[in-house]
């Protein structure tokens, strides 16, 4: 213990100057901007008494909003797996004409400020929109419902899947597929056993990142969501509503659950990845 403290104070035996100054600056920075606000988030809900917290947890509207956020983010991330795989595949292997432009456009949802994505998607898929109007004639109403939420979350999450799959796909040797074909594999066997199997950890990571982002997403969703309580109200929006009602306990309870949900998504994904890589080594 004493040794650990000494090593912490001395920078683990490196003789380079500036350790204590830079460490102190880092601790002040992360302490004030991260640890302090997060400890407020964890401590504050219990300050009004356990009763208030339990009451806040009995809120059916809160569970409906959390379920909407989670289920829509899950569905959007799931739908992004085949889409992301297709895009990554044609970018890496497909000799796509205009590859460089396509490659730059993939990151667009990440570069676009969320409020801009929000009003744009609502206009695009809205009843008078370029895509919304023709689809409405076919009887498909997309905006102002859960479908709208899923669409917005797919838009925001797509780059995560493409960008995690792409580097792995680049390193995948092409001759594996040729060898599989020569050994008599059918095309679907080549796809599932030779291509998708080694990409599985990357696909899962992309899925997890998109899910974690989607659960807490606010700006790109609220304009298209419709925001009807119990139907199309997402959890982050309910936090804002509770704050406007000066219900801090309620808002903080939702925030805490939301935080745990996205952390859990990331932990689960890294566990599954670890499991998959262990299998890979055994095989």
């Amino acid at each position: 213990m004493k040794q650990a403290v000494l090593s912490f104070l001395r920078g683990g035996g490196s003789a380079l100057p500036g350790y204590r100054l830079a460490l102190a600056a880092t601790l002040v920075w992360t302490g004030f901007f991260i640890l302090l606000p997060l400890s407020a988030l964890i401590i504050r809900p219990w300050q009004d008494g356990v009763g208030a917290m339990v009451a806040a947890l009995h809120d059916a509207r809160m569970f409906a909003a959390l379920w909407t956020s989670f289920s829509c983010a899950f569905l959007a991330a799931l739908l992004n797996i085949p889409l992301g795989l297709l895009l990554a595949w044609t970018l890496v292997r497909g000799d796509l004409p205009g590859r460089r432009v396509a490659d730059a456009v993939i990151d667009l949802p990440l570069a676009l400020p969320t409020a801009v994505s929000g009003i744009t998607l609502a206009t695009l898929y809205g009843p008078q929109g370029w895509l919304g109007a023709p689809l409405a004639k076919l009887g498909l109403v997309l905006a102002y419902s859960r479908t709208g939420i899923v669409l917005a979350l797919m838009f925001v999450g797509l780059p995560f899947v493409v960008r995690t799959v792409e580097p792995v796909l680049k390193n995948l040797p092409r001759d594996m597929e040729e060898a599989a074909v020569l050994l008599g594999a059918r095309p679907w066997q080549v796809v599932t056993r030779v291509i998708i199997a080694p990409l599985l950890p990357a696909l899962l990571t992309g899925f997890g990142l998109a899910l974690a982002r989607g659960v807490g997403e606010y700006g790109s969703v609220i304009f298209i969501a419709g925001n009807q309580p119990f139907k199309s109200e997402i959890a982050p929006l309910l936090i804002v509503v509770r704050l406007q009602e000066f219900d801090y306990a309620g808002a903080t309870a939702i925030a805490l659950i939301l935080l745990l949900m996205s952390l859990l998504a990331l932990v689960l994904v890294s566990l599954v990845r670890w499991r998959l890589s262990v299998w890979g080594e055994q095989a």
Partner: protein
Amino acid sequence: MSRYALWAVTWALIVLVLLMSPAVVVAEALKTGLQPALASLSDPDAQAAIWLTLEVTAVSVLVNTLFGILAAWVLTKYRFPGRSALLVLVELPLSISPVVSGLVWLLLFGAQGWWGSVLEQAGIHIAFAVPGIMLATIFVTLPYVVRTLVPLMEQQGRDAEEAAMLAGAGFWNILWRVTLPGARVALFSGILLTTARAMGEFGAVSVVSGHIPGMTETMPLHIESLYNGYQTVAAFSMAALLAGMAMMAVLLRSVPERLARRKEAQA
């Protein structure tokens, strides 16, 4: 044949899902011509929102770059107990919902927060004022400079730094003349990412701002109130400006890389 089908599907997807949105922004902004779009941007509230966004972005970039460099130095040049915990900590804001990132500051400085009423009596306004907006934006953009610097500075090792130290250089000299020149491109890229995210932050800022037009409305918040007030042309003109600024920052990141590649090709 199947190859052409694949190309067609991919491009259809890219156009329908991705390229449609910037097209909509421009089309909606220019629906009534260029003149009304430009006029809406010179409205006093719009001007105030643009200035506030620039101000908040500058402060966030400054704070997170200065501390981010020092944190990257500590995290890469030394091995000490607690290092991996610190690495996780600096990335934490990335996995927190924007709304929660705003809420935490209200828990500290809001009227019902820990220190809100005390500071309020002393005449210091943080929640529903500009300082709150800055705190929330710094929180959200904290990881970007560190996390682009760390992998690169880790790769550099510390031989050059140790040589400089033996030659008698002090901390600031080593950092400024030895370490940072080699990490220039990563630093530039991290700063630009911070800039893009700071300008566009919506959820976190929305919670702490109080939405006072001309006072505490940043560009994204002003876009929201214009859109909700059915001022579509003004909303999309502001959106086009903001998106242009953010995308410019993101695109600029590839410039030093391309310059380096050209230099290599010449040599």
